[in-house]
Every structure is written in structure tokens, then in C-alpha cells.
């Protein structure tokens, strides 16, 4: 295992901010912008994780575009067991799959309501959680 791989393994639970395809995603989040790649050829949103060629047509030209930050819950769960020590005092906590209005899905957390209030199909909007090294997109119910 290379030094780099060992470094990655030890960062379990954290995003890879320097992954070439994903670097702009994390940089834009730092400025509280939720962005995705849009294909210059077929105009579709790539989805996540980011990748070098369009998953719909394999074109290599794309732009990072701002998303509305709105979406709907595809499914949701509540972790009652902590698989990572940093979650020990957070259980039970919500994890949701959010389908974004423009396309693309994120694994994320719904905040601002109790886990049992989260419903499939519920409309949510992005909020930004600033951590020392990076910013995570999370979602709250649309009032």
C-alpha cells in the first residue's frame, strides 16, 4: 500500500477533497454553492460522484453549474448503531438519499427535524455545514 493509500484509509469517514474530478464540487461548497457537472454536448447533469466523461453520452466537455439546492427524499434511514467513534453521541441519526430537482442524487442528512419526521417524497432544500476542513451539503424540509 502506498503512503497515499494509507493516508486515505486513515481518513475513513471523510471526503477526498483532492480527487481531481470532485475538487470543484468541494471548493464550490466552501462558498456555499451546490454545483454539479452539466454536459456541454447533451446538456444533462452528470450526477454524483463527479467523473471525467459524461455518463449519458461520454462527451468530455462540461461546466460546473449551480443547482437550485432543492430535491426530494428517495429513501431515508436512521442509524441506531455508531460504526465510527465520532457518531457515538449522535445515534439515532438520519441518513437520506436526496434526488436533486435538476438530476443527481446525494447520500446526505436531513437536519432541522427529528429522524422520524423524515418522509419519502418530502421536499427538501440544501443547507451548508461548515467544518474546519470542508463544507458538507445537508438538507432541511421546505416549509
Amino acid at each position, binding site marked *: 500500500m502506498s503512503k497515499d493509500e494509507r493516508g486515505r484509509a486513515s481518513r475513513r469517514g471523510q471526503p477526498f477533497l483532492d480527487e481531481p474530478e470532485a475538487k470543484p464540487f468541494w471548493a464550490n461548497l466552501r462558498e456555499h454553492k451546490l454545483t454539479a457537472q452539466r454536459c456541454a454536448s447533451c446538456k444533462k447533469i452528470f450526477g454524483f460522484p463527479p467523473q471525467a466523461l459524461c455518463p449519458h453520452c461520454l462527451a468530455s466537455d462540461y461546466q460546473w453549474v449551480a443547482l437550485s439546492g432543492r430535491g426530494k427524499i428517495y429513501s431515508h434511514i436512521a442509524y441506531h448503531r455508531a460504526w465510527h467513534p465520532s457518531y457515538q453521541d449522535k445515534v439515532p441519526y438520519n441518513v437520506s438519499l436526496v434526488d436533486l430537482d435538476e438530476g443527481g442524487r446525494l447520500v446526505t442528512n436531513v437536519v432541522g427535524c427529528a429522524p422520524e419526521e423524515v418522509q*419519502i417524497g418530502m421536499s427538501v432544500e440544501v443547507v451548508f455545514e461548515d467544518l474546519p476542513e470542508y463544507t458538507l451539503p445537508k438538507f432541511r424540509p421546505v416549509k
Partner: protein
Amino acid sequence: MTNLSGKCAIVGMGETVVGKRPDATTNSLHLEAIKACLDDAGIKASQVDGLLTNQPLNDSHRSYAVKLAHMAGIDPLFATDLALGGATPSAMVQHAVMAIEAGMATTVMCVHARKRSTPDPTPGHPIRRGDEHWEEPWGHFAAAGGHAFAAQRHMYEFGTKSEDLAHIAVSTRKHASLNKNATLRKPITIDDHQQSRMIVAPLRLFDCSLESDGGGAVLVTSVERARDFLKRPVAILGMGQHHPHFSLLDAPTLTTLGGKKSSELAYRMAGLGPKDMNFAQIYDCFTITALITLEDYGFCKKGEGKDFVKNGRIGIGGELPLNTHGGLLSQAHLEGQLHITEAVKQLRGNEVEPERQVANANVGIVSGHGGSLAMHATLILGAL
């Protein structure tokens, strides 16, 4: 295109003792399984010319099929590691058939072992799936989470309830209670399931499978050569795979999985349908996985799994005995390798405890399922 149905057969099978094997290693469990399989088939390692294995979850085992072959005294003309997660054991049998029919090998060992209940003392670092960094920052760490997403969707779309999933856990445990080589043998009730602690809602402890040490192997050869071995051969009648997504982020749906197309291919190859199956060994990493697969395999309509699994239908003596060995839920979790060896034993007859032998077992179906509900492989096996 030649139909490969019935062209090859399983002529040997081996299982290690499963459960907690603190003194064993990944290497030793694989070798134990190979030895048991060779003894069962009545041949020597030198008579095997192909070896397939699962990519072990430890990076010290690169090109593991080649390494294992030589550790076991096999000089392979054909060897590779497959990496389809829990779909790998069924896929290995399929690749063995392909290699034999292509003339690349005549006698292929398909082996998988796992050291997951107690630590593996073999040096190395864990191999991971590859997309965890798009899940873990939000606290999604476990296979239980991925399958809980599917369970939540199934409950939403079809009204399935946790109590419905409990029927699978209870029936599977009953079968394990009849299996001397099973980890959890104490019968449970629907109420026990409902009282078991929540792991990742909506999945409870008794919806989840085991972490196990152990191994298993099967030996595949052409049907022409199959009579030269000690035991009654089991024909490989149908095969299929489908891998409809990679991660939760690109899954078109979580309530119909690769099992639908995979089983359609296998049924077509075999010229058989769900009603012809005398039993089913269905991958049950979680109860919901078995429920969705029963629907995808056409044993009932989509959404009707909740009723299908009740009233003894999936027990020994029922319409479709399910996971007669106790499955991943209660026997051991070896990525479904033992779903295949169990199917072989059921079809041979007189190889399992009489209380869990399926009467008139002539044809059975086996499923494999891996990754983030992503990979799927199907086998249809028949007595010869």
C-alpha cells in the same frame, strides 16, 4: 449461440466448520475448503486444472487464485479472482462453465473463504468498494444502511412491514436449528424479531446476517466426465447475471434489483420457471434482500413478498423451502458460498440432517447478491 444448460456439473463440494475460527487465517480456510472438496470428489489436486476465487478483502492477496492454486498443489491452465461481492460464488460456477466449454480447462475448483468473525492475523490492509467517501462523510458506513434504504422504499411502495420481514428471519433460524454446522441454532419467534434492537431503521438486529469465519468450495467439470467422480453429480442448468447499478447514487430503483433480469436469463437457459423449483437458496445478507429476490425471481408478484413468506410456505415441507441451511442470517455469512454447497447437498440427497432434507429435491435455484445491492448472479441446479 450454444445453450450451455446441462453441459457441466458440480462433482465435488466442501465446507469448513463455520463460526468463530480464531486460529484460522484467510489462507488456511481456503485450503481447508479445497481439501474438503477434493476429498468429496475423490480426486487429487493434480487432477484440477482451473481455479476461481473471490477477491479477498485484504490487499496482501493479489492474484489470489494463482497463489491459492499453487498453495494447494494445483497447476492451473485457468485462474482468476472475481470481484462481484456476494454474487461472486455463483458467478464463479458460471465462469467455470464458460472456461470448460471454451476448452480452457476441464476441472475447475471454485473456492471462497472468509475471516470476518475473528481477526485475520494475515498482514495487509482492507480492500474497499471504492465509493465510500461519497457516503461516510454523512454517516452512512454499513451494508445495513444500504439495505435499510431498500427496505424503507419497499415499505413505502408496497406496504411491507417489519413483521413481514420477521417471517424470513424466523423460518431461516428454524432451518439453522436443524443444521449442526450453523452458528445460531436457538429458534426465535416473530416477537423476538420485533423486540430485537434497531440497527439501522427500519432494519433490526434479526434482519441482519452474521459475520463469520469459514469457507466452501465446489468442483465443476463437463457432464461427460461427471460420472468419474465419487458422488452423484449436480447439473448446472441455468445461469444469469445482471448488475443494474454500482452505488446507491446511480440506482434506478432499490425495490427491483439485478435478480429480475438475471433470473429471466437463467430460467430461459434452463427452459424452466419459478414453479419448477423445489427449493431456493436466496442470498440473505438482510431479510429484505431475500424478500426482494423472491419477488424478482417470480415466485410472487412485486410487492407480494410480504404475504408469500408467511404460512409456512418458505419452510421445509412448504411450497418453496428457503435457505434450508440457515442462510447468511443464521448459519454463516460466506458471501453465499454455502448457498451453493447446500443446494448441491439437497440435490444429491442423504447429505443433510433428515429433518431439513427437501422431499423430491430435483431442481433448485441459488442467488448471489453483492455490493450496494448492485451485483447479482443466478444459478439453477438440477439432480442428475
